[in-house]
C-alpha cells in the first residue's frame, strides 16, 4: 500500500475527529447538546482499550493463552463498586474542583505539596512509556502497511517518522480542545465526544476483522479451533493451575487501572457530568469489553496457523488481512488501531500535562516567584508547555528505548505504577484516620520497590546497567535480585506488584497509625469520608482561620482568572452566603475556602494552598475548631450521642416537670376550690346561726315555743358545721395518708350485715323496703379496716335512703363472689343520677345540681370519702344509674390469698 494513501487516510480521520469534537462542543455551547452525556460518558470509558488491546491482546493470547482476559475481567469486577467508589470520587472532585489524581490525593492528605509533587512525578514516569508504546504502535502499523510485515524497520530518521508528526498534530488538538479555558473543572465535551467516537471506530474495525477471519478464512469459531494445529490450540484448552496468582495479580492491576490511570481518572471522574451516567456506563463497558475480545482468540489461532513464525504476534491483526491481499480491510484495521492510540494519547497527554502543571510546574513557579504579574495565565501556559514536553519525552522514549519491548509489558508496568495509588485513594474514601505521613511513606516505599523490581531490570535489558545486577543482585546480594526479592519466584510483573503493594500498604498503615493527623487534615478527612453530607455547603464545612485581606485575594484571583470571571465568582458566592468581606477589610473565611476551591480548579489544590497561605496570615487550626464544625467525626459522633442522650433525658425530665407542675397546679386549684367550698359551706350555717341569735337577742318579747324552735335550728346548724368539719378533717387525713387503716383480716359481708342492723331504724322510719342476697359470701375475708368499711357502707346506704321516696323506696343489697374479688352492690329505686353527673358524683363537694328537695343533709364529701376508703382497700367503686329509675353503687374488693391474710393476722 502506498504511504501517501495511509497518510491521507490518517489525516482525514484526524480531521473528522477534530470536526466532531468541534461540533459536539459548539452544539453543547449553544445549549442543544447533540448526544446525551450518559452515552458519551459510557463510550468514552473504553479509552481503556488502547493499541495494547487492539494489537497486544492477540500477541498476549498467542503467548499466554487466556491470560489476556484478566485485563478486561478486572474492570468488569469493579462495576458493582462503582456506585460506592467511583461516585464518591466524582462527588469529591466536583465539590473540591479537583481534576487530577495527585490533586485528589494531596488535597486529602493535608494538602501536602510533597505528596503532590511525588505523585505527579511518579505518574509521569509511569505513564510516559505507555504513551510511547502508542506512538510505537502507530509507527509500526504504518510501516507494516507500507512495506509489509517482513520488512518493517524502525530505525527511520525522525524527519521521516510519521509518529513525530502525529505527536505534533495531537499536541495541537489537545491545546485547542482541552486547554482552551483555565478552570480544569470545566468539562471538555469536544474531547469526550472525540474519545467516544474513537471507541466506536476501534470496536467496529476489530469486529470487522474478527468477522472476516472467523467467517471468511474459517467457518466459524468451531472451525478455527478444529483446523489449527494442536500445539497452538493447546494454550486455550485449559488454564494452567499454577497461574492463579498470575491471574489474581493481573486482575487486581486492571481493577485499579480502570479508575486510577490518568486517562481513566480524567474520563471517569473529572469529565463526569452527572453521577447517574455511571448507571449507563455500568452495562455499556462490560458489553464493550466482551465484544472487543470476542475475536481475539480466533485471530491469534488463525495468525499462528497461517502466518510465518517470524511474524511478531503483536502484528497479526494487520498481517492477516495483508497476507490475504485484503488491503481495504487492512486499512480499516489500521484505522481502528490508529483511533485506539490517538484516543489514548490525547487523553493521557491532557491528563498528564494537567498533573505536571498543577502539581509540579505551577507550585514551583509560585514558590520562587514573588511578582504577582507573572501569575497571569500561568496555569494555562504551563499546561500547554507540559503538553509539548510530555509528547516530546514520549516520542524520544519511543525512539530510543521503547523499540525493544513488547507492547504488553510496558502497559503492565504502567498499571503497576498506578496501583500504588490504590491504598491512598481507598483510604481517602473510606478511612478517616489515614494521614499524610502514611501516604508519603506508602507512596515513596511503593514506588521505590516498583522502580527496583520493574524498571531496573528494564534498564539492565537495554544495557544501561550491567547484567550482573539483575542476575546476581546488587553487590552480589542474591536475595536482593530485583526480580527475585527474598527468593520469590514469579513473573516479573507479579513479583513487582506483590512486593510494591505490600510495602506501600504496610507503610501507609504504619505511618497513619504511628503519626497524628493535624486538625486541618482531620477536617478534610471527614470531608472526604462524609462527602455526601458535606457537598451542599462545602465552604461552611471546612475550617479556615487567619487574616487575609479581601483586596489581596481579589487581586490574585483577577490575575489568575481574569476580572470578569472573578466578578462572576463573587456574585455566585454572595448569592449563597451573606458576607464575603468583613468590616475590617478582611475576607470572610467561607469566602477564602470558596476561592481556594476555585483556584484549585485553575492551578491545582497544592498551588491554590500555596497562594492562599502566601497571601494570608494563617493561624493554626485547632482540633476544637474542626470538631465544632464537623457533625460526623467519630469523636463528635460520640459527643453527639452523649449530648443527644442528655438532651433526651433533659426533655424527659422537663416533660415530667411540666406534668408534675400541672398536677401541682391542679392540686393547688383543687385545694383552692376545696377551701372556698369549705368556707362557703361553713358560712351558710354560720349565717343562719347568727341570724337566729340576733333575732332572739333583739326580740325578747317572742313566744317561748318560737324561741325554742329557733334554738333547735341553731343546734341543727351547729351539728351541720361539726359534721362538715369532721369530714373535712377525715378527708384530709385520708388524702394525705396520715391515717393508717388498721388492716385486719375481716369479713366484709358480716360488717355489712352489722351496718344494716344499725340502720334498720332509719329505713323503717322512712318506710323503705330492704332486701338482701349474700349467697355464700359471708365467710370471705379481705384485708381491711372494720370501722372504715362500716363508714363506707353507712355512706352509700344513707345516700340511697336519702334519695328514695318515702314509703315507696326499695333498697337491695347483694354480695357476689367474682373471679378474684368480692362485689357488694347497693341498688335503690330513687331519683337516679343524670348522665352528665355520673362522672362527677365522687368529686368533692359535688352535690347534684338538680336537687329540688331542700336541705340535703351532708357535706358533699361523703362519696369522696367513700371512694377514697374503697381505694385504700385496693378496691373500686362505681355507679350506674338511669334518671328516675334509681342508682346502683357497686364496690369490688380484692380477695387476698389466705397465706397473705395469715401474715397480716400475725403482725
Amino acid at each position, binding site marked *: 500500500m502506498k504511504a501517501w494513501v495511509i497518510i491521507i487516510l490518517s489525516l482525514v480521520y484526524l480531521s473528522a475527529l477534530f470536526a466532531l469534537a468541534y461540533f459536539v462542543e459548539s452544539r453543547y455551547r449553544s445549549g442543544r447538546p447533540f448526544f446525551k452525556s450518559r452515552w458519551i460518558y459510557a463510550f468514552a470509558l473504553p479509552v481503556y482499550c488502547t493499541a495494547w488491546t487492539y494489537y497486544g491482546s492477540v500477541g498476549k493470547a498467542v503467548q499466554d493463552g487466556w491470560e489476556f482476559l484478566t485485563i478486561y475481567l478486572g474492570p468488569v469486577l469493579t462495576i458493582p463498586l462503582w456506585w460506592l467508589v467511583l461516585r464518591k470520587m466524582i462527588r469529591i472532585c466536583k465539590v473540591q474542583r479537583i481534576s487530577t489524581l495527585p490533586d485528589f490525593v494531596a488535597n486529602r492528605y493535608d494538602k501536602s505539596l510533597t505528596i503532590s509533587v511525588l505523585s505527579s512525578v511518579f505518574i509521569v514516569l509511569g505513564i510516559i512509556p505507555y504513551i510511547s508504546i502508542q506512538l510505537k504502535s502507530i509507527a509500526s502499523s504504518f510501516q507494516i502497511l507500507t512495506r509489509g510485515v517482513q520488512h518493517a524497520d524502525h530505525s527511520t530518521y525522525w524527519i521521516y517518522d510519521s509518529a513525530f508528526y502525529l505527536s505534533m498534530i495531537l499536541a495541537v488538538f489537545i491545546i485547542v480542545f482541552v486547554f482552551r479555558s483555565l478552570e480544569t473543572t470545566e468539562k471538555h465535551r469536544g474531547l469526550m465526544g472525540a474519545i467516544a467516537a474513537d471507541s466506536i471506530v476501534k470496536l467496529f474495525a476489530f469486529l470487522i476483522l474478527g468477522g472476516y477471519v472467523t467467517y471468511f478464512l474459517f467457518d466459524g469459531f468451531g472451525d478455527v479451533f478444529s483446523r489449527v494445529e494442536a500445539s497452538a490450540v493447546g494454550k486455550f484448552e485449559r488454564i494452567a493451575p499454577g497461574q492463579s496468582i498470575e491471574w489474581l495479580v493481573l486482575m487486581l492491576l486492571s481493577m485499579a487501572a480502570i479508575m486510577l490511570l490518568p486517562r481513566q481518572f480524567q474520563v471517569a471522574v473529572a469529565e463526569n457530568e452527572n453521577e447517574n451516567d455511571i448507571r449507563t456506563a455500568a452495562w455499556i463497558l462490560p458489553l464493550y469489553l466482551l465484544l472487543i475480545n470476542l475475536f481475539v482468540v480466533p485471530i491469534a489461532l488463525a495468525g499462528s496457523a497461517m502466518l510465518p513464525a517470524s511474524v511478531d504476534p503483536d502484528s497479526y491483526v494487520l498481517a492477516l488481512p495483508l497476507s490475504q491481499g485484503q488491503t481495504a480491510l487492512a486499512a480499516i484495521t489500521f484505522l481502528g488501531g490508529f483511533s485506539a492510540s490517538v484516543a489514548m494519547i490525547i487523553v493521557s497527554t491532557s491528563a498528564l500535562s494537567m498533573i505536571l502543571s498543577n502539581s509540579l510546574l505551577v507550585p514551583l513557579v509560585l514558590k520562587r516567584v514573588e511578582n504577582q504579574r507573572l501569575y497571569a495565565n500561568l496555569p494555562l501556559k504551563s499546561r500547554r508547555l507540559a503538553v509539548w514536553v510530555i509528547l516530546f519525552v514520549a516520542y524520544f522514549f519511543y525512539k530510543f528505548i521503547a523499540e525493544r519491548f513488547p507492547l504488553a509489558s510496558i502497559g503492565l508496568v504502567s498499571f503497576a505504577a498506578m496501583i500504588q495509588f490504590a491504598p491512598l485513594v481507598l483510604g481517602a474514601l473510606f478511612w478517616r484516620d489515614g494521614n499524610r505521613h502514611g501516604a508519603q511513606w506508602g507512596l515513596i516505599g511503593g514506588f521505590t520497590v516498583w522502580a527496583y523490581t520493574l524498571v531496573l531490570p528494564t534498564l539492565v535489558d537495554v544495557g544501561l546497567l550491567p547484567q550482573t545486577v539483575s542476575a546476581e543482585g546488587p553487590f552480589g546480594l542474591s536475595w536482593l535480585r530485583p526480580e527475585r526479592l527474598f527468593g520469590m519466584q514469579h513473573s516479573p510483573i507479579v513479583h513487582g506488584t506483590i512486593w510494591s503493594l505490600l510495602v506501600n500498604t504496610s507503610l501507609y498503615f504504619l505511618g497513619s497509625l504511628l503519626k497524628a493527623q493535624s486538625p486541618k487534615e482531620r477536617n478534610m478527612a471527614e470531608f472526604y469520608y462524609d462527602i455526601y453530607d458535606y457537598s451542599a455547603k462545602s465552604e461552611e464545612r471546612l475550617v479556615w482561620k487567619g487574616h487575609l485581606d479581601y483586596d489581596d485575594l481579589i487581586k490574585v484571583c483577577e490575575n489568575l482568572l481574569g476580572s470578569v470571571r472573578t466578578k462572576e465568582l463573587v456574585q455566585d458566592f454572595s448569592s449563597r452566603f451573606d458576607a464575603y468581606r468583613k468590616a475590617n477589610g478582611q475576607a470572610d473565611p467561607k469566602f477564602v475556602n470558596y476561592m481556594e476551591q476555585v483556584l484549585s480548579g485553575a492551578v491545582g489544590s497544592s498551588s491554590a494552598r500555596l497562594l492562599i497561605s502566601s497571601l494570608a496570615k494563617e493561624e493554626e487550626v485547632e482540633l476544637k475548631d474542626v470538631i465544632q464544625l464537623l457533625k460526623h467525626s467519630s469523636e463528635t459522633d460520640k459527643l453527639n450521642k452523649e449530648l443527644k442522650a442528655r438532651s433526651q433525658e433533659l426533655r424527659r425530665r422537663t416533660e415530667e416537670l411540666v406534668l408534675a407542675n400541672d398536677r401541682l397546679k391542679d392540686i393547688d386549684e383543687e385545694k383552692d376550690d376545696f377551701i*372556698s367550698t369549705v*368556707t*362557703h359551706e361553713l*358560712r*351558710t*350555717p*354560720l*349565717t*343562719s*346561726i*347568727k*341570724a*337566729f341569735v*340576733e*333575732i332572739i337577742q*333583739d*326580740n325578747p318579747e317572742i313566744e317561748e315555743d318560737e324561741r325554742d324552735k*329557733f334554738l333547735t*335550728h341553731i343546734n*341543727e*346548724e351547729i351539728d351541720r358545721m361539726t359534721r362538715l368539719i369532721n369530714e373535712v378533717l377525715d378527708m384530709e387525713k385520708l388524702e394525705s395518708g396520715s391515717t393508717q387503716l388498721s388492716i385486719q383480716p375481716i369479713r366484709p359481708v358480716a360488717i355489712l350485715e352489722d351496718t344494716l342492723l344499725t340502720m334498720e331504724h332509719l329505713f323503717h322510719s322512712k318506710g323503705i323496703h330492704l332486701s338482701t342476697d349474700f349467697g355464700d359470701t359471708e365467710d370471705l375475708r379481705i384485708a381491711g379496716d372494720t370501722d372504715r368499711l362500716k363508714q363506707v357502707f353507712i355512706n352509700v346506704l344513707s345516700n340511697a335512703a336519702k334519695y328514695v321516696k318515702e314509703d315507696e323506696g326499695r333498697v337491695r343489697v347483694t354480695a357476689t363472689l367474682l373471679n378474684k374479688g368480692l362485689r357488694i352492690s347497693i341498688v335503690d329505686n330513687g331519683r337516679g343520677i343524670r348522665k352528665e353527673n355520673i362522672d362527677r358524683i365522687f368529686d368533692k363537694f359535688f352535690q347534684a*345540681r*338538680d*336537687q*329540688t328537695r*331542700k*336541705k340535703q343533709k351532708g357535706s358533699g364529701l361523703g362519696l369522696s370519702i367513700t371512694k377514697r376508703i374503697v381505694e385504700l382497700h385496693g378496691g373500686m367503686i362505681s355507679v350506674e344509674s338511669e334518671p328516675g329509675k334509681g342508682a346502683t353503687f357497686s364496690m369490688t374488693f380484692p380477695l387476698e390469698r389466705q397465706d397473705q391474710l395469715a401474715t397480716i393476722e400475725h403482725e
Partner: protein
Amino acid sequence: MSKVLIVDDEPNILMSLEFLMRKEGYEVFIARDGREALNIISEETPTVVILDIMMPNVDGYEVCEHIRATERLKDAKVIFLTAKSKEEDIQKGMEAGADLYMTKPFSTRTLMKKVKSLTVVNDKT
C-alpha cells in the same frame, strides 16, 4: 306597704329573714330558688329583692338581670346576700345590676337598716 322578696335555698335563712321582715311590717314573698323567684316577680312587683347567688336551677345573677331587664321592675332594689366574697364575685354582682352586695355571714341588724333605707327612698320618690 313595701313588698320584699327573699330568695335563698337555705330554709333557715329564709325562715329568719321572713320573721324579721314581717315584724317590720313588710309584705314578704319567699322563693327557694331562682325559678320560684322568677315565678313570683312575674306577678308581683317587690320593692326590695334579697337574692342568694348560688342556687339550683336559676342562679341569683340571672334573676337580677331579669329584674333589670323588666320595665315594670325598674324601681326594685336588689340586695345580693351571698357566701361568695371574692372581689370578682362582688364585681360581677354589681354588673348584674345589684344595689347592694352583702356577704354571709351578715348581721341581720345591718341588713334591716339597709332594707329600711332603700324602702324609704323608694317611698319618697
